[in-house]
């Protein structure tokens, strides 16, 4: 007995010693174990026919203008669909009205497909948290990732291959080829659905423009004007005239956008072989401009640790005069950050030099690798219903626009076409009567955006390249004597290592 007791003591002592190692190893260890955990249980929903019908009738019917097409909420010929429960991604931190709009859409969806149960999960893709969610198995059944990562996830088989389901969609073959490629595998099979495309734009606060004595209908169109306007805003209002993102890969994303706008490129391609080229004259030009705005003009405010969410929040709160992000971000500024629409203005990114253009990207919707066959089918139905029907069918567009407008959610923020221009224009016509975004305030953007060349993001190890550039931007903004050359050459080396690993 003594010996057993002694060994028990030893076991306990050993355990406590080893728990030290566990503290360090558990992050990777636990993710390893949790990937094998059971997938979201699929249970048969007990929706009776009556319940489904009542839900269908209580859901807002499409307006009269949508006549001629079947209302989307009628239970479809989905009887053949296997019962499934799925979780679907929604933006995190939605305002109550935005949440209500989504809930209505869930009700409409479940009425249309009575055998499917959908549950929303808050999710926002960020470069530094996605991999943890993927490895931890906590991604919803349907989630979205930027164009930069779609092909990589497909190639690594980290998402479900739903190409058979996608092929059944009537518009499966109609995608703009340059957009479709972001959801295709190496053989050209569409495994994920491109749901939106964006071009980078300059967003500005009209209120701060007015207070600084600037014309709120004339956002800057050259970098010199942008610098002068930023200084005026900062001097007159005390707010940041111009701000940039710096964290979770967004620093690199915006720096790349600015370098593109001056004609630079971050990677050079030789056939399929990519080489990091962040150490280019245009990037240095951008960094010098940022340095001078920060330290000479003092027009960039006092906060230099911004990610996408953080900068949107600060902009919506009226703390930032101008910043750069995707052209359709107005929607998020309302649904997540409750911006006062009157203060919002949107213009194009100033372009200078040869080969300059606006950085363009987009979002693909994907299905979790853990989804069962029934869940995969249900997931594609949700992608079709929630993201695509509003772009492809009159009834879908009308229903989505009406639901959002009824819940005081933005309708009609500018996007780039994921199909062709004609389809996009047609869709804009379908939703015309519900458009409630301040289109006049977006005119400087919508008038000039089409004329700007759209340049895709760096092709290989994009997010790693962006991550390597984050510290460079942070250093320039927080250290007056930052050595740009050595920072850029270190970043270039890091990006090149990542490119080497990815290719």
């Amino acid at each position, binding site marked *: 007995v003594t010996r057993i007791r002694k060994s028990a003591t030893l076991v306990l002592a050993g355990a406590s010693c080893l728990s030290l190692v566990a503290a360090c190893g558990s992050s990777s260890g636990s*993710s390893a174990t949790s990937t094998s955990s059971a997938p979201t249980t699929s249970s048969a929903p007990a929706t009776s026919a009556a319940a489904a019908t009542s839900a269908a009738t209580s859901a807002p019917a499409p307006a009269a203008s949508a006549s001629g097409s079947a209302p989307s909420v009628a239970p479809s010929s989905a009887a053949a669909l296997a019962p499934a429960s799925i979780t679907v991604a929604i933006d995190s931190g939605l305002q109550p009205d935005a949440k209500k709009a989504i809930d209505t859409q869930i009700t409409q969806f479940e009425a249309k497909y009575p055998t499917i149960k959908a549950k929303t999960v808050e999710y926002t893709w960020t470069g530094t948290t996605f991999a943890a969610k993927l490895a931890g198995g906590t991604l919803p059944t349907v989630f979205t990732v930027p164009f930069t990562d779609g092909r990589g996830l497909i190639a690594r088989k980290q998402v479900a291959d739903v190409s058979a389901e996608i092929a059944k969609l009537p518009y499966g073959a109609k995608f703009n080829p340059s957009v479709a490629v972001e959801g295709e595998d190496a053989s050209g099979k569409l495994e994920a659905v491109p749901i939106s495309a964006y071009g980078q734009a300059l967003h500005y606060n009209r209120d701060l423009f007015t207070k600084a004595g600037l014309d709120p209908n004339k956002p800057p169109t050259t970098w010199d004007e942008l610098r002068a306007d930023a200084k005026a805003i900062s001097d007159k209002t005390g707010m940041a005239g111009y701000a940039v993102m710096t964290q979770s890969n967004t620093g690199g994303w915006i720096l790349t956008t600015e370098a593109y706008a001056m004609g630079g490129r971050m990677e050079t391609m030789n056939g399929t072989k990519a080489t990091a080229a962040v150490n280019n004259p245009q990037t240095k030009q951008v960094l010098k401009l940022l340095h001078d705005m920060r330290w000479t003009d003092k027009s960039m405010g006092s906060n230099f640790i911004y990610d996408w969410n953080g900068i949107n929040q600060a902009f919506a709160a009226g703390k930032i005069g101008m910043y750069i992000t995707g052209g359709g971000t107005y929607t998020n500024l309302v649904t997540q950050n409750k911006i006062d629409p009157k203060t919002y203005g949107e213009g194009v990114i100033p372009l200078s030099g040869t080969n300059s253009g606006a950085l363009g990207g987009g979002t693909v919707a994907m299905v979790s690798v853990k989804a069962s066959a029934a869940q995969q089918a249900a997931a594609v139905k949700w992608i079709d219903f929630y993201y695509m029907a509003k772009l492809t069918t009159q009834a879908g567009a009308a229903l989505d626009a009406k639901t959002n407008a009824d819940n005081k959610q933005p309708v009609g923020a500018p996007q780039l076409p994921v199909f062709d221009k004609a389809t996009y224009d047609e869709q804009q016509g379908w939703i015309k009567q519900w458009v409630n975004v301040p289109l006049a305030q977006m005119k400087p953007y919508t008038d000039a955006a089409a004329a700007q060349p759209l340049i895709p993001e760096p092709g290989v190890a994009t997010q790693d390249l962006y991550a390597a550039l984050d510290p460079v931007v942070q250093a320039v903004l927080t250290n007056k004597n930052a050595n740009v050359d050595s920072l850029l050459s270190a970043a270039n080396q890091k990006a090149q290592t990542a490119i080497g690993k990815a290719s």
Partner: protein
Amino acid sequence: MTILERPAAVQPVRRRRHRSPVTWARRGGISNIVFLLPLLVIFGLFSWFPIVRALVMSLQQTNLVSPAHWVGLDNFSTVFNDPELPTALRNTGYFALLALVFGYPLPLILAVLMSEVRRWRGVFTALAYIPVVVPPVVSVLLWKFFYDASSTGVFNTVAGWVGLGPYPWLQSASSAMPSLVLEATWAAAGGTVIIYLAALTGVAPELYDAAEVDGASIWGKIWHVTMPQLRGVMLITLILQLIGTAQVFVEPYLFTGGGPNNATLTLLLMIYNYAFGSSLSGDFGAATALSVLLAVGLGLFSALYFRLTRSWSTS
């Protein structure tokens, strides 16, 4: 401290005696195993399996989806050749040092002061402990708000009242780390205060009476009675704090993401970045390799610490 240990001299000399499995079972061996089983299973599953798995993974290249393959010590050489490793080591050391200088004496001082207070002691204890109850994410978000670098930020407004600031707090490479230490100290001090308070109740009042008879001042009583009596506990809290600060993650991750320009990149943040920082190609091999290195480093440090402080410890 280790009351299980007895001086070797009084241990009875025992001879190894052969026992048959039957005797062992009859003497309650099976029931011992049965009682041990839940512990073994839980530790095995949640502690030892991840540890072994981490050790194995540090020798593999894996993304947890495609089959892993052995790469020998490649992951370790990746870690050693990473230009960010010296930065992370330096930053972690700097955090530990600052936390030691500012964070270590504070709970002790608070506890001694509180033990001297007759009234409201419960209130003070609760106040000191509240930060520990607040979830770390909440307190970090709260402090992020306090640390707003504009002149209208909470701390800068307060500093402005006495004509100081505005300070950049998290927005400058030189002040970011001290800012993290300040919050971490606030968040963790309460737990240590409770430990010291408990230890203080164990100090025999006669010792104070004797000191008083000898004409000791309050300071004298603290220095000559309280401190020596708390020595054992202080040695433990010191090593716990050093191990804890070497593994700091929440603060740099949530406050600054390691910025500005890697000024708050710590070892654990680096481990996280290896594994999850890249949205596509998580390098779990390098992450576990650095974890193993850190664990071994801390293990060696703890062993050395206990050896060096053996003569000072109270047990």
